[in-house]
């Protein structure tokens, strides 16, 4: 049996390096995509959680029973069954529901911004959720909904 020549070894190493480089590139792209998709999915779920709860409860209020304060970043309102004021606001990147006064519940995390605009017949809510993934990628997504005052 004869040994490999140096040329054969170099060629083999080159071919193997190219194949390995391609595989690593694909894995890196897949990892980036996985990281972003998973992160974005998380943000969408956070927004969905917060928005759904808020709209369902705020819908039961009315223009004259709701107050938008602190430049549109906090909403206080009454509903037929609440008895006392219900509040929604963002604190330390968490969407907070306060009811009754002093009792808070975290509805969603990674919420960087919220704004409320109350008109005669509608409430407009805009939420932005942001976070940095494990792969150090900054993600952000916004969602807006309009709610018709029912009372």
């Amino acid at each position, binding site marked *: 049996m004869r040994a490999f020549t140096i040329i054969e070894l170099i060629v083999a190493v080159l071919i193997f390096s190219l194949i390995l480089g391609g595989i690593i590139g694909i894995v890196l792209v897949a990892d980036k995509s996985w990281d972003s998709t998973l992160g974005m*999915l998380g943000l969408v779920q956070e927004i*969905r959680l917060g928005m*759904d*709860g808020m709209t*369902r*409860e705020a*819908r*039961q209020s*009315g*223009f*004259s029973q709701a107050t938008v304060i602190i430049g549109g970043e906090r909403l206080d309102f009454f*509903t*037929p*069954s609440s008895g006392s004021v219900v509040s929604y606001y963002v604190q330390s990147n968490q969407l907070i*529901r306060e009811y009754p006064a002093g009792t808070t*519940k975290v509805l969603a995390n990674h919420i960087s911004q919220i704004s409320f605009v109350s*008109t*005669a*017949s509608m409430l407009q809510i805009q939420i932005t959720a942001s976070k940095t993934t494990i792969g150090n990628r900054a993600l952000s997504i916004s969602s807006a909904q309009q709610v018709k005052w*029912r*009372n």
Partner: protein
Amino acid sequence: MEELKQDMNKKGSALVMCFMVITVFSIMSAAMFSSSVSENVFTKRYSEFTQAFWLAEAGANKALNELRISYATTTVADTAMGAGGYSASITNNADGTRTVTATGFIPYLAPFRVQRVIQVIMNKLPMVPPNFYNSALYSAGNVNIDGNAYDIDGNVIYAGTISSNTGNINGTITHDPTVTPLASLSFNQLRDISKGQDNYHDSSQLNGPFPSTFWYDESAGIPNVVFLEGNLDLNGKTLVGGFFVVGGEVIYDAVLSGNVAVKGCIYTRGNFTINGGGNALNIEGGVWAGTGATLHGHAKIDYHSTYMQAIQNLGIDTDVQTVSWLDTQNPY
């Protein structure tokens, strides 16, 4: 023989490596598949939950319609709609109100995957509240006044809040939370009257032409009833008259701007906004606003008792209206 033994002793590392790679990829694929399936199920359930809500709303609206036809109604037929259906029951309350419990469900036949229940209290006032016809401005919401160029000659009643600059109101100012929601005049009756007078405007004819006087038949004391199935916008008009009823079953806004004289009254279940700017808007009659009134610039509202009396004499019934709306399923 010795060479064969040596070949058989070689370790099968390639096979083990292959199994490991396949295992890793299988786990990743399974995780992705599971995530995708659960997200799909969640989205479908969320979608059905939303559909069930709107079906319940449809049930409540159906009940409202039935009550407007007959306030003695106690049943609403179950109805299939889209992927599901709705049912609604009506309960008579001791205070004369009706409680409508409307359920939206998917699918139409049991067992239901999702259900949403809303509870709506409806009322038909025996008559409009006191002072309904005695005010220059009657707002079931807030009254926002911008600046001091306005002038109101007559009483003001409001349910919410009023701006502090009320110096140009020449009449009594009354805060009365009970005037909300705005007493709902029967739109069916008002439509019929306006159609009989050829004063009816559907959504494609909102710009007029409108009458120039309040009276349809002054000797008989009958006003022009101008019914609009949409917004009232008097831009470009100079003189209009009549009893303007703004909006159909949906709330619309009455936005008035420019140099216009209105000989008559305006009734809207929505918002009443005057964008007067440097021009003048003179309303000689009165205004009812369902959700609030906003006065910018040169706005003048003068109460006119003869016009109000003529509208009262029309004997318009009150309509059944929603006084309370509740989503029975607490999201928390």
